[in-house]
């Protein structure tokens, strides 16, 4: 399949990397020659210089024979125009546009239909939704949902005084008294696929599959306090901050939004009447104290500088704020983030890329393709959701009789809306929804690829 990516910014490059690994042919368009040259050196792609919304540039990128156009250039309007122009040249093309201006947020669906786009992505809005989900269950560093929200993979960090510390995995079900499956453990930057003898240590990150209904129970039995988040401080009134404040204020949470630019504050106060907007510098210790950082349940650091976000989060942690969420835009230095022990990290660009990759995979083969793909453990692991159709092999056979590929784990089977963590006696049936966990370098194009 041929893919044209318009815009070689952070998202464009991240997408290029991910899609190349899956074996697609990629053409990049950008209006800076230097950026293009750097990309052509790093990746096996062809670069076309020019404005991606102009017909000549698109023709040069061979848009007539392209199956998918992903417009992730700087401006929304350019992205839209790019997709429309491409559609005019090649009516069969699928188009994905990134639209991030909050002023268009309410009309995304109409825009999709009017301009015949296949998908609109909005990384900031998606990040806000992700943060909102995280705020629902303080204690999890990250949540990925599957099977229409019935199954989740959550990330937990083993604390020093936790019951999990120095316990073997086989004793897990006795300790927490509910049915879960640990599908991966990350220690430092090494990811293990653990068996029953694996002993958890302080600082390990566990990736746990559980039915959504079990999550509250899981947290309670782990001894993590889970009262509802009532008061949230958001540092940074950018796009993510705006979306998040808007969504949280709808659910009745008390939100305080700190923003440095005075004009932006007035704008925000106009759009968000229920939110208390404060003009000030969030990196200032005294200021945060005066805004009552000690009394808040959660703090979300969303300024445009990663370094600033990290420092704000560290500071919040020193005040024992129960939940701290940090926005990170650069994925190049995961080691630093780990040393600092920042808690939940949210990367809008990665979320956006994952969504696009999911779409591309589904496009690649209509039969048996993954419905959802989530990467976790610093991108080293992947969880995929499949729905079994007529072509699924080995239906009705007990799992212990099947030979699976190496590093493939069946995390959960959902049948008639009831999620089950499978054991050796379980089996697949048609119309089941199955969650598979694998190493990220194994590409599963369809469900049947899991068998050896």
């Amino acid at each position: 399949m041929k893919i044209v990516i318009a815009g070689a910014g952070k998202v464009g490059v991240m997408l290029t990397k991910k899609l190349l690994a899956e074996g697609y042919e990629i053409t990049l368009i950008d209006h800076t020659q230097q950026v293009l040259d750097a990309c052509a050196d790093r990746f096996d792609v062809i670069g076309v210089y020019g404005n991606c919304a102009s017909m000549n540039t698109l023709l040069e990128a061979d848009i007539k024979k392209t199956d998918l156009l992903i417009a992730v250039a700087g401006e929304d309007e350019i992205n839209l125009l790019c997709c429309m122009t491409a559609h005019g040249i090649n009516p069969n093309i699928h188009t994905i546009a990134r639209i991030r201006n909050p002023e268009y947020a309410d009309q995304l669906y109409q825009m999709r239909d009017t301009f015949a786009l296949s998908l609109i992505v909005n990384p900031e809005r998606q990040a806000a939704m992700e943060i909102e989900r995280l705020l629902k269950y303080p204690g999890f560093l990250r949540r990925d949902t599957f099977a229409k929200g019935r199954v989740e993979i959550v990330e937990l960090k083993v604390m020093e005084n936790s019951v999990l510390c120095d316990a073997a995995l086989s004793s897990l079900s006795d300790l927490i008294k509910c049915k879960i499956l640990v599908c991966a453990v990350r220690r430092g930057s090494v990811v293990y696929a653990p068996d029953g003898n694996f002993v958890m240590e302080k600082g390990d990150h566990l990736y746990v599959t559980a039915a959504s209904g079990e999550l509250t129970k899981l947290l309670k039995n782990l001894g993590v306090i889970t009262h509802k988040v009532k008061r949230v401080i958001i540092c940074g009134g950018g796009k993510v901050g705006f979306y998040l404040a808007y969504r949280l204020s709808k659910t009745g949470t008390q939100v305080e939004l700190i923003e440095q630019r005075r004009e932006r504050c007035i704008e925000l106060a106009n759009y968000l009447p229920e939110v208390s907007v404060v003009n000030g510098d969030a990196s200032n210790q005294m200021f945060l104290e005066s805004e009552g950082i000690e009394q808040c349940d959660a703090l979300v650091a969303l300024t445009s500088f990663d370094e600033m976000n990290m420092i704000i989060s560290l500071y919040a942690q020193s005040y024992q704020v129960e939940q701290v969420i940090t926005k990170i835009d650069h994925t190049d230095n995961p080691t630093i983030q780990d040393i600092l022990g920042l808690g939940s990290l949210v990367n809008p660009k990665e979320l956006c890329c994952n969504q696009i990759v999911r779409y591309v995979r589904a496009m690649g083969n209509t039969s048996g393709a993954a419905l959802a793909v989530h990467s976790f453990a610093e991108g080293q692991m992947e969880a995929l959701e499949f729905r079994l159709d007529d072509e699924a092999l080995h239906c009705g056979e007990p799992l212990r009789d099947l030979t699976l590929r190496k590093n493939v784990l069946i995390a959960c089977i959902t049948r008639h809306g009831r999620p089950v963590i499978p054991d050796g006696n379980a089996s697949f049936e048609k119309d089941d929804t199955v969650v598979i966990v694998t190493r990220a370098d194994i590409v599963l194009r369809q469900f049947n690829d899991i068998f050896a």
Partner: protein
Amino acid sequence: MNYKMMGRFLAMITLLDAIFMVPSLVIAVVEEDARAMFGFGWTILLTSVASGVVLLLCRKARVRFYAREGMISVGLGWIIMSLIGALPFWISREIPHYLDAFFETVSGFTTTGASILTNVEGLGDSMLYWRSFTHWIGGMGVLVFLLAVVPASGKGSGFTMHLLRAESPGPNVGKLVPRMRQTAMILYILYIILTVLDVIFLLFGGMSALEAVCTAFGTAGTGGFGVKNDSIAGYSPYIQNVCTVFMLLFGVNFSCYYMLILGRFREVFRDEELRFYLGMIVGSIALIALNVRGMFSSWGETLRHVAFQVATIITTTGFATTNFDLWPTFSKTILIILMFCGACAGSTGGGFKCGRVLLLFKSLNRNVQKTLNPQKIKVVRNNGHMISEKVLDNLHIYLIAYVFLLLVSIFIVSLDGQSLTTTTTSVIACFNNIGPGFDAVGPVENYHMFSPLAKLVLIFDMLAGRLEIFPILLLCARSTWKKLI
């Protein structure tokens, strides 16, 4: 530097070298040529074992591969490949001195066609085949072949561009399609199709199978090794004309052929470099034909010989149908200019490349205008696209390196005490991968009389010319081998 990955890469190249020798071994076995069998057999055996060991030692290489490693691998790869390619000549005692065998092989791989053999017809068929086959491999490039056949591992797909850039001639190397591997495959498929066509046309002219294949290899790689002592002169006019046409075809940028297949005729027709190339050819033929009109019996014969000589020099092939050393000075001067000019970028030909000459003219024109009007902003454009300052800078540096190396080489070769024409044209002919020069290295002469030092310098020139200087020049730089940049 990632030595393991480089080791792996070099081992793959040598292994490929051994595989390429198999057909020659088969010919030797069929013809029961014991010396050749001995030469090829031992070389293949030793090379495969050595490459196998290196591959085994380097199997756990990190895939990281940067421009530095790419450039060095290309330079070293070509040298090692030639060192191994020379072994059959030496082991079989067909060429008694190893340096001579090395010279012959480098001349083959770099598609120069300069020979130290005084009697080509004395070689066995398998040796002749190998000699010509090195042209064919060297023409499109062995790394491009490697890229086409070896599946790029998903992780290290980035390093391939450095290799293509290092091996493909031209100021601005690009890909035809997004995937490196497919680009390499398209290039080789076009190359094979054109070569097969050439063989078929030559067979119609009454050549024997081996002669046709060897001549086609020499033409395709724009090399110039023939199978006869008098090159192409002894063949019929038909064969000479076929050679002229195919030499010119192989001197065209291969992306033009790809665009023709895609039906983009207008772009090909409007290609400035192609127009320049064709213009040079037509102009030179007309001027030389007028100049030498009295030397041949008819206008037809004159045109045939002149066209052949112009084609062989501008595409840097180096075949000959007549001793152009006897032509008037005006004609010889035109030929020397053509030697420098060379074929199109992205073809199998050598030289400075038409594309570069064209860009230099444009750059010169721009700077003249800038001198007259310092406030003037003018960009250099080619085929309607802006040429970035980076490319122009590289072009100017290339010109400097080119002239500098040429002068230093002439300086060292002059120690041999040959005539000035011999000294200069031998360096020019080797550096531009042509083969024959004038005077003592003219079309009916060869390079056997040079001293070992001069031969080494010419070997260096041939490699530098084929790989466009920098991959070879880098190997001599001290900073290349430092641990930190």
